[in-house]
């Protein structure tokens, strides 16, 4: 990538001091990038990606997680997850394949929509129309082992079936190549989901680092979904461990679903919207002590995350106390 392409003229020096908080942050980044470039020019070395690229942070919609994702010194408006980066999501067992994929789609969509809102001011509420297509890269093994994405089911995640481009490479080298190409292209994908199994050598620290850099440069969010993945080092900005969570059907989603009868006796038997137990295992610059599993729900109607249970020290899959916890959060 030509290093000089993305640098604007430093007219932001002339901007008024009373800029908004968000603007101040991005201006600061721009100024830093500009100064970096001038220093590089004086020192006669090539401009590296770190010099020119800034982290774009977007909120994922849950205040508690957003505050943990970004380091403490940042302002509230700049809190959230890094959009132009590689994020890793892993599930441990094959039967959790859909949970991992569902969380990856929700996360990708949330990031993509927040990014769009931040950059253009447009909102992509229901449906993903203003957004670029979503790319899903999965080889044949992954598809047969964990199932294909199913168009009618994708609707709940805000993705029209036509807007999901499915790419099925022959082998892992091709998978990596395709991922690299998409990651390097600006604006082609609203986000790219790479699905692989385990920890092949093609997706080691070096290659994930390369993907990370490309994502940083192009601004395309990349999500690496590892099926049967272990807790291993990679260059991703965050790593999430997703496991299933029993769905909760008494919340707002359930009300939408079965009307106004909030206390229907049969309600507890129904299956609620997608729910996940999410453990943020790795996050650059965040406090490791705070990382305990959350129980998160995806609201298909409003297309946003909702926190069902506050983090507890012991990861628990039983939702005996969840209802009380949820009642608190929704109160």
């Amino acid at each position, binding site marked *: 990538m030509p290093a000089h392409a993305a640098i604007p003229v430093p007219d932001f020096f002339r901007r008024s001091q009373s800029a908004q908080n968000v603007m101040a942050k991005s201006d600061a980044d721009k100024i830093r990038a500009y100064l970096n470039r001038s220093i590089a020019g004086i020192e006669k070395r090539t401009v590296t990606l770190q010099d020119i690229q800034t982290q774009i942070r977007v909120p994922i919609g849950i205040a508690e997680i957003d505050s943990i994702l970004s380091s403490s010194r940042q302002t509230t408006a700049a809190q959230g997850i890094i959009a132009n980066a590689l994020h890793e999501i892993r599930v441990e067992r094959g039967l959790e394949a859909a949970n991992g994929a*569902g969380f990856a789609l929700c996360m990708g969509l949330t990031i993509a929509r927040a990014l769009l809102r931040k950059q253009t001011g447009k909102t992509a509420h229901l449906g993903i129309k203003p957004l670029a297509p979503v790319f899903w890269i999965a080889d044949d093994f992954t598809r047969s082992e964990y199932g294909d994405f199913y168009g009618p089911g994708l609707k709940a995640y805000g993705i029209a079936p036509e807007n999901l481009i499915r790419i099925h490479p022959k082998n892992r080298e091709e998978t990596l190549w395709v991922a690299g190409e998409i990651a390097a*292209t600006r604006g082609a994908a609203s986000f790219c989901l790479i699905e692989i199994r385990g920890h092949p050598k093609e997706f080691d620290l070096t290659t994930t680092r390369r993907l990370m850099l490309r994502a940083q440069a192009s601004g395309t969010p990349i999500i690496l979904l590892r099926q049967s993945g272990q807790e291993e080092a990679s260059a991703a900005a965050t790593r999430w461990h997703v496991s299933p969570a*029993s769905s909760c059907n008494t919340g707002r989603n359930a009300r939408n679903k079965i009307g106004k009868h909030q206390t229907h006796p049969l309600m507890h038997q129904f299956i609620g919207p997608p729910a996940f137990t999410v453990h943020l295992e790795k996050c650059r610059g965040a406090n490791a002590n705070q990382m305990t599993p959350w129980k998160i729900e995806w609201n298909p109607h409003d297309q946003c995350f909702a926190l069902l249970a506050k983090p507890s020290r012991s990861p628990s899959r039983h939702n005996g106390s969840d209802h009380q916890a949820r009642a608190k959060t929704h109160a």
Partner: protein
Amino acid sequence: MTNALPFLPNLPDHPQGTTGPTIKREQKPMPDAELELVSAPPAKAESATSKETRRYLAIHLPTLPTDRISRLQGNACWRLNAKQADQERPRIVVAKIKNAIRLVHLNEQATQLSLSAGMSLTDAKAAYPDIDVLQQDREADQLLLNAIADWCDRYTPLVAIDHAMQDHYGLMLDITGCAHLFGGEAALAKDLLARLFHQGFAATGALAPTPGAAWALSRFKNKNSDYNGCVKIKTVKDIEPALSSLPLAALRLTTDSVSALARLGLRSIGQLSLQPRAPLARRFGREILYKLDQAMGAIEEAISPRRPVAELMAERRLAEPISLETDIEQVTQRLARHLSEAMERKGIGARQFQLCLFRVDGRTFYLEAGTSRAERDSQIITRLFRERFASLQDDFDAGYGFETIRLCVLSSERLELNETSFLGSAKDDEASQLMDRLAARIGVENITRGSLENTHLPESAERKIPANQYIERPDQADDHMDDITLTRPLRLFALPEAIDAIASVPDGPPIRFRWRKILHTVTKVEGPERISDQWWAKPFPRQTRDYFRIEDDQGCRYWLFREGLYERGTDRPKWFLHGLFA
């Protein structure tokens, strides 16, 4: 790879004991390293007016089946080796014709032994007991002929396989406008025939203004003279004197017609053309006169080229064969630059490219790459083919190198200069170029989008369409996003996986099931949703399915179904897992 025929094995580096001409490029004064931008000759458009100017080269391969065997047994250039060629034994190819095994093809040695095609095998064996007899393999011969036709693409894009008569192998080349690249049409024909000879084929050729005349002359004019010579007729006026002494079979008539005419004492074309036309037509039908007129040039005859004629092409003939990928890429880029200039002049952009690589030993590779929108940037074209090379790796054998490389535009669209809009077209450019690169590398069929179908059957509810065929309509509303449903899974297995399930009541949902060797206990159930097959669509409809949404004690959600109904459908309904919810 569009064509990977087992055409020609590699030539030996030094043909041993060669007395004849050696395979050296210097032998023919070829215009080496000459870059020509050839606009393809118009296939038919102006044929009516420019009849005089069309030139056809007919190639006849009389001993193709036996040559094929000789090439396999010895080496490809066995004809160059005088010793080997002399020691060649009489060889015949036989096939079952009308319940008798008869001779179909003979090599030159067998022809000298007073054997002829159509003779029965027993007669031939009685006369020459130690003759080589081979079974006819029409498929292999046809494959070889196709490969030769591919090879002939280097001379002209209009190469047709001659189907005039069965078991007669030949090619018809329209060399109009191509001859000057090879130093004239005589030089072209000489070069082509010499190269065929070097590759171990006996071939005769003829140049004429009509395909019919070329066909007749290539087969009958120099029958007893040496092979690999070429006859030539300049204009339509010269056709009649040249053909008049030839037998009637030269008109591509059926054997029945020939023998019927022979009974009237008509044996040569000259005699036939002197006859009054009306009685002939009444007695034998229009066929004979039609063929005669075609040969004489009174009726237009079009040949049907094997490959679509490129709209534009640029090619480079190289002094030294190249085999490195970077070299090929460089040449491709240079060709692409020439093409893009030509396209700019015409105001078009290409949607489909083809790269033809002619290997030294006669094998031809065709690589194709498509774009999702009209392109004429040489950088982009080169990049597309770079991905194409990368995807081939193993199938792509450069062997002794490529001597000619040609880049064609197979289909194009109007492309105005600097056609950009104010609304973020640079972004669209990058996206469409990305899609083209991906398609070139991993194949168009491996990049799909989904499209919802109006059906209840879960398997057919979504159809996969190639991503490049998807046309985005800007006014397409997100109407189907309104009915957000949670009743369909996120992931669906192409084939439902059989599970063991225990239900509390026969028609009820399962309380426990085993999938992939793990036992799951059901905690929440929704269903059943009964989905029947389309009874009107198939003769044997599938059994009705009852789908259940299930959540187990660990919080995983599944889409199960029971195939068949108790008491009505089958005795033992089976359970399947069809999909997974998040």
